[in-house]
C-alpha cells in the first residue's frame, strides 16, 4: 500500500473576535494509506471535522502541509468525495439529477449540453444512477423525488451514491449517520462496509460513536486535547483486525481495551473512562 494522504505537522488557529486566537489542531501528524477505512473519533470540538475539511481542501492549515498523493491541493476536487451530516443534497434537484450532476458537470460545458451526445450520455448516466440507487436499497420510484421528500437515511444513501458515481479516490464522511435512527444507522453502516469492500475507495469517517468506529474502520484514530490551551492531536491510532470488526464479542473488546489504554497513556483519563 502507498501513502495517499499525509498530514504534516498541522496547526490550525482560528481568530476569535475580541479574544485570544483559538488553536484547534497543533502538531498533527497522520499518514493514510490507499484503500484504508479510517474512523476518526474524539470529543466534541476536538477538531475532527476541521481535519476532514483540511483533507478535503475546503480549509487551509495555519501551518503544516496536507499532501494528497504527494501534492498540496488547495481546493476540493472531484477526487475527494464528500458526505456531510446536513445539506448533503442539492434541494432543487431530484434524486436522479443529484446523482448525475457530477458526471454531467464534469463532461459537458454549457454549450456541450445542447449537443445530441449530451442527451445520449445523459441516458447512460441515468441508467448508472438507477443501478446505484438499487445498490443503495432505494426504490426506483424515489428517483424523481426531491430531497425534502426523502427520510434522513434515504437522503444519506443518495448522497453516498452522488459521491460514488464520481469514483473518487477518497471519500470523506463527516458524521454522516449521526442524525439517523439506530435501525437506519446500522443498515447504513452495513451498506458502507459493503461498498468499501467492493470499491476499495479510501474512506475517512468522522464519528462520535466508538462502536461505529470499531465496526467500520480498518483503523481508528482518536483526536484529543494535548494541553491547557485545548489544541488537539492524534492521541490514539490503532489498526482494527478484520475479525474484530465482524465479531462484537471478545475480539472487539480486546481492540477497545488497547484503544482505551492508548487514550489513557496520552493523558486523557476522562475520555478513556467515557470509552470504557
Amino acid at each position, binding site marked *: 500500500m502507498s501513502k495517499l494522504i499525509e498530514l504534516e505537522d498541522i496547526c490550525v488557529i482560528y481568530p476569535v473576535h475580541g479574544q485570544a486566537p483559538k488553536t484547534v489542531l497543533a502538531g498533527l501528524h497522520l499518514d493514510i494509506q490507499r484503500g484504508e477505512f479510517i474512523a476518526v473519533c474524539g470529543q466534541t470540538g476536538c477538531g475532527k471535522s476541521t481535519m476532514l*475539511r483540511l483533507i*478535503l*481542501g*475546503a480549509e487551509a492549515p495555519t501551518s503544516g502541509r496536507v499532501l494528497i498523493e504527494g501534492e498540496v491541493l488547495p*481546493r*476540493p*476536487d*472531484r477526487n*475527494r*468525495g*464528500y458526505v*456531510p451530516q*446536513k*445539506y*448533503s443534497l*442539492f*434541494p*432543487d*434537484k431530484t434524486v436522479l439529477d443529484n446523482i448525475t*450532476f*457530477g*458526471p454531467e*458537470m*464534469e463532461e459537458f460545458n454549457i454549450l456541450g449540453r445542447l449537443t445530441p451526445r449530451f442527451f445520449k450520455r445523459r441516458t447512460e448516466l441515468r441508467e448508472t444512477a438507477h443501478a446505484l440507487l438499487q445498490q443503495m436499497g432505494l426504490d426506483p420510484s424515489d428517483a424523481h423525488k*426531491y*430531497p*425534502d421528500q426523502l427520510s434522513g437515511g434515504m437522503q444519506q444513501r443518495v448522497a453516498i451514491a*452522488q*459521491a460514488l458515481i*464520481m469514483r*473518487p479516490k477518497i471519500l470523506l464522511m463527516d458524521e454522516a449517520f449521526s442524525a439517523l435512527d439506530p435501525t437506519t444507522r446500522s443498515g447504513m453502516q452495513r451498506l458502507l462496509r459493503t461498498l468499501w469492500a467492493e470499491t476499495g475507495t479510501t474512506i475517512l469517517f468522522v464519528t462520535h460513536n466508538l462502536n461505529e468506529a470499531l465496526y467500520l474502520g480498518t483503523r481508528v484514530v482518536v483526536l484529543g486535547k494535548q494541553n491547557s490551551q485545548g489544541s488537539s492531536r492524534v492521541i490514539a491510532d490503532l489498526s482494527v483486525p478484520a475479525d474484530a470488526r465482524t465479531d462484537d464479542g471478545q475480539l472487539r473488546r480486546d481492540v477497545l481495551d488497547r484503544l482505551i489504554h492508548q487514550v489513557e497513556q496520552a493523558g486523557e483519563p476522562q475520555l478513556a473512562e467515557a470509552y470504557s
Partner: protein
Amino acid sequence: MLWRIDASPGKATTWTLSWFLFIAGIAGYFYASHNRHLENPDDKVIPTLNQLAEGLSNAFLKPDSEEAAPEDLANASLATKFFTSMLWTDTLASAKRFLWAMLLLIPAVFLGLHMGMFPVIGQLFLRFILFFDKIVALSVLPILFIAFGIDELSKVMLIVIGVTPTIILDTFNLTKSVPREQIVKGFTLGAHDFGVTYRIVMKQILPRVLNSIRLNLKAVMLFLFAGEMIASQDGLAFRIALLRRHMGMNVIIPYVLWVALLLFLVDLGMKVANKRLHPWFREA
C-alpha cells in the same frame, strides 16, 4: 372560544371575517356619498354609483379628450373602444416603464449573486451599495431630471436607483446563506467556480430572489408613480395627477382600483410562475 389564541374559526367564520372590512368599507363609502349628495347633488368628492359608472365608461371606452379621436369610433366594437381608451393608453405607457425597470433588475440580481460568491467582487461593491441603499431615491429626483432630462430615462432611473440596491443586497444575502457544504460539494462533483455559481447557488436562491422582487413590486410602482406624477405626458399616475386638478374622483377611484388589480395580477403571475418553475421550493 373565538377570542382565544388557540381558536380555530370555521369556514363560514373565516369567510365572513375576511370579507367583513371590504363590505364595511364599501357600505361606509356609499353611505357617506349618499349623505354628501343630499346636501349637494353636484358633489364630486365622493361620487355616487352613477357617477362612478360614467367615469368608468369614460376611462375604459373613450380616448383621451385632448387627443384626436378616430373618426369611426362611435360604431367601433367594444374591444376597439377599449384598446383606444384613455385607460389602456395610460396602462401601456406605465407598463413600458415598469417593464424596463424590471429588466434592469436582472443585472442587479447577477451583481448580488457575484458579490456573494466572489469575495473580491463583494468587497469592491458592498460598501458602495450599502451607502447607495441609504439614499432616499426621491431626493435625487431633481438631480435625475437635470442629468437625464424629463424624458423616460429619468423615470426609469428613479425606479432603478430606488429598488436595485435592495435587490442587490437581498441577492447578496441569499447567496451568502447557501450552506458552505453545498459549495464544497459542488467542487467535489467536478464543478468549477461558475458551475457552482450558476448551477448550484443561483438555482437555489432564484425562487427567493423572485419573492424578493415580488415584495418590491410596490416600491417599483411607487417610484414609477412619483416620476409620472412630476414629469410625464402619459401614464396611469400622470392621469391621476391631472384629474386631481379637476376633482375627477369618478375616474381617479377606478384608476386606483385598476392599478391595484394590475399589481395583484403581476404578483399572482410571479407567484404562480415561481411555483411552476421551482416545484421543490417550500416557502418558510
